[in-house]
């Protein structure tokens, strides 16, 4: 845990949608970049975004805010945001913040793909 935090953000196209994969720790110093990259993804006008957080070990409230802002931007155009496979720690944070009531969280990429059109 005391190893230096790093966050990798990879965006790829799948049909008319985007998959954004987060790997590492969305700690406070990376959240501006996370916010910019997620808004860039929204700006590409995809049919929906799948946010793969299966390798995300940590997220602070700034990172959560970036995810919520992405959800709100997509919702304006009735496009879905699907959160995929949160780790137990991140899932617990969604429970504590009650974001599970707002965001669609899926156990697998296949389940998310069924919700987000290609």
């Amino acid at each position: 845990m005391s190893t230096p935090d790093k966050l990798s953000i990879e965006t790829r196209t799948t049909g008319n949608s985007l998959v954004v994969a987060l790997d590492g720790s969305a700690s406070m110093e990376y959240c501006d970049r996370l916010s910019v990259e997620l808004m860039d993804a929204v700006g590409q006008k995809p049919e929906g975004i799948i946010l793969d957080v299966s390798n995300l070990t940590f997220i602070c409230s700034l990172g959560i805010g970036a995810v919520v802002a992405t959800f709100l931007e997509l919702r304006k155009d009735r496009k879905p945001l699907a959160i995929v496979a949160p780790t137990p720690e991140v899932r617990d944070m969604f429970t504590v913040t009650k974001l599970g009531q707002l965001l669609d969280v899926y156990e697998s990429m296949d389940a998310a793909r069924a919700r987000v059109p290609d």
Partner: protein
Amino acid sequence: MVQPDPNNEDTFKEVTVQSTLHAAKEPEKIILKDIEKHGFNSDAIFAIKLALEEAMTNAVKHGNRGDESKFVHVRFAVSSACVVIIVRDDGPGFDPGDVPDPTTPDRLSQPNGRGIMLMNAYMDEVKYRDNGREVYMLKKNGD
């Protein structure tokens, strides 16, 4: 040399950093290394890292209002039983009672405002002092 004692704030170690999110990582690295040495479990380490990030973010963005000429002062002490962390900013303070609950239906979709509730949820004690300029947080080992 007097060993830092969570029950005696006069013995605490202190780290002061410039009020930026990058500089704010320095106390976190030091404290996490210390709590690992004291055998805190991974759940407690996650909780402490989260609460400390939220406290530092609040100090930089809200307390010091993004003014990079200001500082954030962190005092802490770790024992095998618990860790106490005190984060202080140079800002005018605030009333934590004025911060709305971010989990109510009307606020759930707000992008901001979850830091304080996360600190409260993940730490065993959180207290605001000196008109909100200082936050005291305690986490027991094993929780």
